[in-house]
């Protein structure tokens, strides 16, 4: 079954919730750094839970391009589609 980017986005929002200490309303443009104020360790912690959920590994070289929750959803989608 292929998941849509929206379904992945919704799941990521759910997985991000434990890290959302400021109770920010998350949309695709929400940034991990400025909006959610996550430090680099919390980001990796969250990434681990996303990776575990989808059983994928997000390669290091794309991390610098991921600033928003929406971008992570698109990245997971393309890894799943490969």
């Amino acid at each position, binding site marked *: 079954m292929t998941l849509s980017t929206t379904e992945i986005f919704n799941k990521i929002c759910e997985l991000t919730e434990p890290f959302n200490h400021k109770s920010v309303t998350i949309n695709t443009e929400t940034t991990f750094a400025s909006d959610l104020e996550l430090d680099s360790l919390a980001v990796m912690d969250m990434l681990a839970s996303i990776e575990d959920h989808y059983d994928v590994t997000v390669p290091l070289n794309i991390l610098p391009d991921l*600033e928003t929750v929406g971008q992570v959803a698109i990245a997971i989608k393309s890894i799943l589609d490969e």
Partner: protein
Amino acid sequence: MHEPTPTLDPTLPRRFADFSTLLEALDYAAGGIRGLNFYSPRGELESSITYGQVRERAVEIGRRLVHFGIERYSRVALIAETNEDFVCYFLGCQYAGLLPVPLPLPTSFGGRDGYTEQLHLQMKSCEASVAISAAYMLPLLDESTSGLNMRFVGSPDTFEAQASLSDIKKVALPKVKSDDLAYLQYSSGSTRFPHGVAVTHKSLMSNCRGIGKHGVQLRENDRVVSWLPFYHDMGLVGMLLSPITCQVTSDYLATEAFARRPMQWLKLISKNRGTMCSSPTFGYEICSRRANPTDLKGLDLSSWRIAGIGADMIRPAVLDLFEQSFKDCGFNKKAFIPTYGLAECTLAVSFAPIDSGYQVDYVSDAVLSGDVKSFEKFKVNGDAGNYREVVNCGKLLPDFEMEIRDENDIALGEREIGRICLKGDSVMVGYYMDEEATNQCLSKDGWLDTGDIGYIAEESLYIIGRIKDLIIINGKNHWPQDIEWVVEKLPELRSGDSAAISIPGANKEETPAILVQCRKRDEVDRIDLENRIKSEVQAIIGTTPTVVLVPPRSLPRTSSGKLSRVKARRQYLEGQLF
């Protein structure tokens, strides 16, 4: 299914880095059956290579580099992944008489421009002419090398294809001497104004001997299990080059894998009976935080005898929590070994005694919060009401001489706080191609002024502050001038308007703060400025800082007009800066 290389090697008597070069050390290790093992993020053995195989591949790479016509002593930038390619290219450069320069990998989300700019500035500062990374990293490496004069930029595969020769064995390798430089280390220092520590073979051997023979006092059944990055001195020297020069088998987990699943480190220690597994304080902290009953089940940490701690300020509360979390898994707190070191001394300077755990001294807050720059002869107070725990970092390795000096460079006595100055074979010959920076910390007669503050009590070293103004977040060093530089780029701010400092967080950990002189009165404008400062700083250090807007001309200056961060920090913590 292959097996990892063994811990024990009855065929090869141990030698403690008593070699003249790293090459001689590898030649010796290659005669045994030990080696290096690389594990996947989920803890499966991905590859295993004996020192004999490492040497064979490194010699071949060395010959290819010579054949390719890379001039002797050229700098070769290597994006330091935790894998065989990095190790073999690092050592291949040695055989070819070139200087490898390990460079960092991305560590978190976002910050693409900051990352490529950092690589660019590092390669530019040492005039690297070759840059090698795994194929998937090449788009980032290409961006970083743009505008630089490079002979080759690519992956190991493309290099080997381009530098091929049917009879590669005929290529002669240069003679490498003990005084030759072995590599450049960029792990400390400002990212905006980088300078690489130049490490000779002689320094490296001296330091590895100190670590193996005196620091950890290697035993036959010792085995390293590490997640530390190879681009950092503690990972490169402590976890890779010391094991090679002292013939120890090592198991590696990539740093990014540890950051996501820290328990894999402990599982690997348990599975392979690791004995020497060191980390900055924050590594122990994230293990305790992520420990859960499922992971703890079946975990056996009783083999672990050297839990070295270094690279950031050592916080006893974190070590206590780690012991509480893992003592039921056999972790013995006597394994904790606080250490002191810095890249300018290759790596290690002092080690606490083995098998005794960490010890603390109690230092009065009044002494610590004073303006230590003036170096008055404070006496450390043993029983003050308000005190801070300062960890004993142990005795100097035998190759060092040390003096604690005051502001007039006069050597101080027992329990007097001053600057830590060191001399010895492990001390760097200088920053590569940067005479000015070298002269600022290294005297003509070989004394290095570390800039760190501490004191000696009963022959043991106690560190009170790392390099005066350095801000260390999650084990990563940040230079205040780099943070101030991005803040002061904002249109309404000017140079000298900000001071980046670290302040204690909820668990006494260092957290970043930036004090900014603000001329605006309007509340909306002020909030807007604060938010932009937060996101600029976040982009380079990965953490959102506390932003404090202070009145114009309120940041303290020294008599020569330079910003005094020490004073700014004290005034802020005392609530005087509003």
